């Protein structure tokens, strides 16, 4: 029987395009998930122009801008970590991955400070102060907490993902010749960044 010989050759060859394709499709579905929220935002903004404008003035643009800078820079460090591994410098790649995670943590800490301030003002779901405001403003804050909150969860997941990649890089599983995992994690991180780029003007800048 010659079948035995066949199996020894039957190694599954690595297919990086397959992994990237899977991630792109997943990101596509993520975009549509947020797309649902953006749809709600545009419908309610259309219905309550004035209230949205008043409510958005309560946002702290300083924190928003800082977080935008932080997240954009973190996308840069993520890209740098991939370039580093491609060029074979593992230590540099690990350094940039850790910096990316650090940026993520800073982003979340800022968010925490910002939300605490809003909560002190009484702008939180179910509070008597908020419920006394006109419906458009209740909706604005409802959407703000939902959209930014869901984005925050994605930042946390992204950080976890990168931390896992750092472990794989230290172990040498992600290396100069096989870095598609890091690349797809990077794609996810850029998605988190892109969604923020739309959230920032919608909640902080347009008044």
């Amino acid at each position, binding site marked *: 029987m010659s079948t035995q010989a066949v199996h020894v050759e039957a190694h599954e060859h690595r297919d990086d395009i397959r992994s990237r394709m899977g991630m792109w499709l997943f990101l596509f579905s993520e975009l549509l998930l947020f797309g649902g929220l953006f749809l*709600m935002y545009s419908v309610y903004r259309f219905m309550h122009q004035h209230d949205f404008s008043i409510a958005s003035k309560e946002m702290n643009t300083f924190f928003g801008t800082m977080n935008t800078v932080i997240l954009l820079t973190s996308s840069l460090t993520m890209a740098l970590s991939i370039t580093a591994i491609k060029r074979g410098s593992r230590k540099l790649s690990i350094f940039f991955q850790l910096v990316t995670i650090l940026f993520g943590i800073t982003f979340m800490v800022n968010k925490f400070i910002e939300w605490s301030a809003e909560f002190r003002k009484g702008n939180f779901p179910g509070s008597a102060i908020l419920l006394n405001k006109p419906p458009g403003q209740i909706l604005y804050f409802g959407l703000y907490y939902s959209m930014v909150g869901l984005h925050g969860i994605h930042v946390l997941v992204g950080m976890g993902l990168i931390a896992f990649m750092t472990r794989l890089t230290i172990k040498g599983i992600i290396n100069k010749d096989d870095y598609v995992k890091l690349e797809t994690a990077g794609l996810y991180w850029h998605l988190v960044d892109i969604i923020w780029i739309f959230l920032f003007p919608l909640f902080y800048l347009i008044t």
Partner: protein
Amino acid sequence: MASDSIALDHNGHEPSYLEYEGKHKGLLGWILSTDHKRIGILYLISILSFFAVGVTLGFLIRLELLTPQGTIVGPQAYNEFFTLHGVIMIFIVVIPVIPAVFGNFFLPIMLGAKDVAFPRLNLLTWYLYIIGGTLVLLSLILPGGAADTGWTFYVPYSVRTGTNMIFTLTAVFILGFSSILTGLNFLTTIHRIRAPQMGWFKMPLFAWSLYATSWIQVIVTPIVGITLLMVIVERVFHVGIFDPSLGGDPLLFQHMFWMYSHPAVYIIIVPAMGVISEVIPVFSHRTIFGYKFIAYSSLAIALFGSLVWAHHMFATGMSDTAEFVFSLLTFVVAIPSAIKVFNWTATLYKGSIELEAPLLYALAFIFLFSIGGLTGIIQGALNVDIYLTDTYFIVGHIHYVVFGGTGMGLFAALHYWLPKMFGRMYNKKVARVAFWFVFVGFNVLYFPFFILGWMGMPRRSYHYLPQFQTYHVISTVGSWILVIGLVLMLGNLLRSLINGKKITERNIWGGETLEWTVETPPTFENFENIPDVINGPYEYKQNEPATIEEEVK
């Protein structure tokens, strides 16, 4: 799962996937297996179990409606019954069933591959599925009562009702996630790991139907995910999104719900159409008529089906322009479905037909789905829909499409592929008898719905006027016939797995697609070598079924 060598048994044969022993043994060898075939079987067992729960609830609903006033349960329990019946049947049974069971098992084999693109992700989808299903069952058992909103979860009631809504909503969210990941996996599989000679137009039509379905799954499921997530957020944190008392717009919920749930009808039906496209050429021994039209019509359904959602909302006071556009698109989406029906009947024409159980179910599919489809067109007409909306007419329509369509497609697939999956043949005579019980029971049960609806019987109603009783009694008797048929059918299949006639012949029915060239039941790696794909999937012209088996040997 690239294993360097596989232990051969004493005859020098590879063990089948059922006997194959990997890292884990026994039960763990199943629930930790990333083999697409074993995952397909896991899905089969779990989905059929949920199907039994759904059928039981449906049976109880019919029993309750035997008399105009209360028969066996109170109104609250009745509301919970029809909600759970809908949730289980739609989200837990018919949406996943054909892709997750037969898609998982046969898609890689049909493409000449050893597994799906992401085997571990595939196993994850099953775990998500089980978590979702368990949450729904928990909502039934835990104090507070199961969801009572109907399977559509319309706000504001779904925000305010005191029942275990959160369980049900979370379950549907998780099931949606599972569905997206399955779709993503299949898309990547079809794009990346077909056998080298398996061109797009050499793919079996079942693979084409899964391709279209997977796109719908990936595109629309996130929308219902986020919508239901927002209802959960609204319930838990009192965030204003949909609840009108907080400024929200309940109609926005309806739009977003149907943006998913209408295309979901096509997630449900298109794979079943794929099954029918496999069964009909095999049992009429003819090349399928209009291969490319059937393939493209799946994509056309996926495209147009995503643009018709608001025809569920004609009675909500949308603008006339919107109503007109959605009505028109609803008529348009009927065209690709009709193309398929015409092609199937053209395939049967002058074929040498073998009236085995799979073909019987396929013919039932065509007949019942046509009724379901045409009654859908009736409701797509604006003026008629204003009269028929929220009556039993729509309940009849959904059951003819979903049960008459996907249900029959599922039964056809079970009778067509189960012998291949387990290497055992069921009793063909019992299968045919069971079919007639199912078919007659189905029509006696659901056809009166159209008449009731036309007479004005509102749906989801616990009480009804005495003049409707005759039809309700007929319908309930139909449910008994149907249940007898289902028990007979599933019992026959189950019995065959235990002591049915063993079969080892590869090509059981004389099919031309690749799954009939591998061993029965398939080996762990499906193929000894990546197969050469010379013929198209339905080339019956010169080949007698028997010769193919010899060619392979």
